[in-house]
């Protein structure tokens, strides 16, 4: 996949080119200023070498115009770079709406990854070429950082919280996956490989090997195992609200305020139900903290996401 002595990383995602363009842009700017200063001081050293021991050069106090000039020019250029880099940043963090969802749990010292179809991997990630993939990530212990140099993407993985990252692979091949945030003894071995496959190969890979149950099926099983369904009935007749079609909605909370139902909100509802109570309900839901693993929660989330509203009736 690489020559023996590479000096530049692979460009294997849709933003690699844009990031590299920014890199070379700033590089040009920096080389310009560095050369400017270096050439000037070298010329001065040659031209104004001290001729005699009691030579006293003309004393120049300063020059206001010059000062303004060399304050303003770098400031303007720097602001230009800022705009460029920030626009790119927004692009880098905003996934397209149709992106495939995958889940990542980091723990000392491995990456646990899961596909929407339920296939699980450790330290390996298979993704289809040309598809946008959005990762939802969390950590079981300390900070980690999910880093694929060839894709120019990186994001810290934080315990107690979900972070996201997305990319679109543009080149078939295998690439490094690193943990970039120091996380203890085997930090440098918390590495893996990202395999970019042609879509049909990806399909084949998905279906090959062990039969997998889709992630939301696993979630459904947990939903029953933990007796969630006793309160959350599909038709809304249970003691808890129906969860169908809930994902992505904004719900009203007891005591005023609203909340957007996203992954983090569901996670909170499971681990600390009384933190945000849906309007019209009593805070009777027990906490499942310490009973369901991070992976289990992710499966439950996927299940709740998959629930469609049976027949359109607006929810209170």
């Amino acid at each position: 996949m690489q020559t023996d002595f590479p000096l530049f990383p692979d460009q294997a995602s849709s933003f690699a080119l844009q990031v590299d363009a920014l890199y070379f842009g700033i590089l040009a700017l920096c080389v310009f200023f560095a050369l400017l200063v270096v050439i000037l001081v070298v010329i001065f050293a040659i031209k104004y070498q001290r001729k005699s021991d009691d030579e006293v050069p003309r004393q120049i106090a300063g020059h206001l115009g010059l000062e303004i000039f060399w304050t303003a020019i770098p400031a303007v250029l720097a602001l230009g770079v800022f705009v460029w880099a920030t626009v790119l940043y927004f692009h880098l963090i905003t996934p397209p709406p149709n992106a495939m969802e995958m889940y990542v749990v980091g723990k000392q010292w491995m990456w646990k990854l899961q596909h929407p179809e339920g296939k699980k991997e450790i330290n390996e990630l298979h993704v289809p070429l040309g598809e946008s993939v959005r990762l939802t990530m969390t950590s079981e212990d300390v900070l980690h950082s999910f880093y694929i140099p060839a894709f120019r993407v990186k994001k810290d993985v934080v315990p107690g919280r979900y972070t996201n990252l997305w990319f679109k692979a543009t080149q078939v091949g295998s690439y490094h996956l690193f943990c970039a945030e120091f996380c203890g003894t085997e930090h440098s071995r918390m590495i893996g490989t990202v395999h970019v496959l042609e879509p049909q190969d990806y399909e084949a890979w998905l279906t090959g090997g062990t039969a997998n149950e889709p992630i939301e099926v696993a979630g459904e099983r947990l939903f029953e195992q933990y007796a969630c369904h006793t309160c959350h009935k599909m038709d809304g007749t249970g003691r808890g609200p129906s969860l169908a079609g809930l994902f992505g909605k904004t719900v009203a909370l007891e005591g005023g305020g609203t909340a957007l139902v996203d992954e983090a909100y569901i996670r909170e509802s499971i681990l600390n139900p009384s933190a945000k109570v849906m309007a019209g309900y009593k805070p009777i839901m027990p906490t499942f903290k310490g009973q369901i693993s991070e992976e289990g929660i992710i499966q439950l989330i996927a299940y709740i996401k998959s629930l469609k509203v049976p027949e359109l009736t607006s929810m209170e």
Partner: protein
Amino acid sequence: MADHALHHDHPHGLAHQFEDMPQQKESAVIGMWSFLITEILFFGGFFATYLIYRSYYPEAFFEGSSHLDIPMGAFNTIVLIVSSLTMAMAVHKSHEGNKRGILVYLTLTGILGLTFLVVKYFEYSAKIEYGLVPGLAWHPHGENSPQLALFYSLYFGMTGMHALHMIIGIGLLIWVFVKAAQGTYTAEYNAPVEIFGLYWHFVDIVWIFLFPLLYLLGTQGGGH
């Protein structure tokens, strides 16, 4: 040694590096203020943490606060304000070079400082008894229990750091007292009393903020 490098009379209390008393006094006051700046930011780290968690977990903070003893906190506030007054009076007396005045007011200040610490001791004991000390003796089990631990960590951190400053303050007070008793301070040379006063007032100010932030926010029963 080489004191003859100074070619003028050497007033009482003037250190060798200074030219005259006003310069020395100005330096002392500015030095103390510079130190207080660092103290402001030192406590600032606590207050920033408090601010952020408070805005995230208002309920837990209300709940935590409602277990604190307002009468004791209010009493201690009053004790500290009175001690600030006596401290200000001690400084005032030192400007007059009134040794007896300094000693009397320093004594009062010291007693009030100790009173504060004694009350604090009782408050802490009660918390330990009820198991409200995160990590060491922690009993709450409710839904908010984790965030309650954040509140109590901040409570003990902040009041503990404040109490530590009080203890240091009382140590310094004793030192100033001894010097004053030896008759060191005159109408011209009294910078140590003055800058110690600055320190004492600063510690008082910290408490002025701690009291409402920690004790008083639980009075509304946890909801608006």
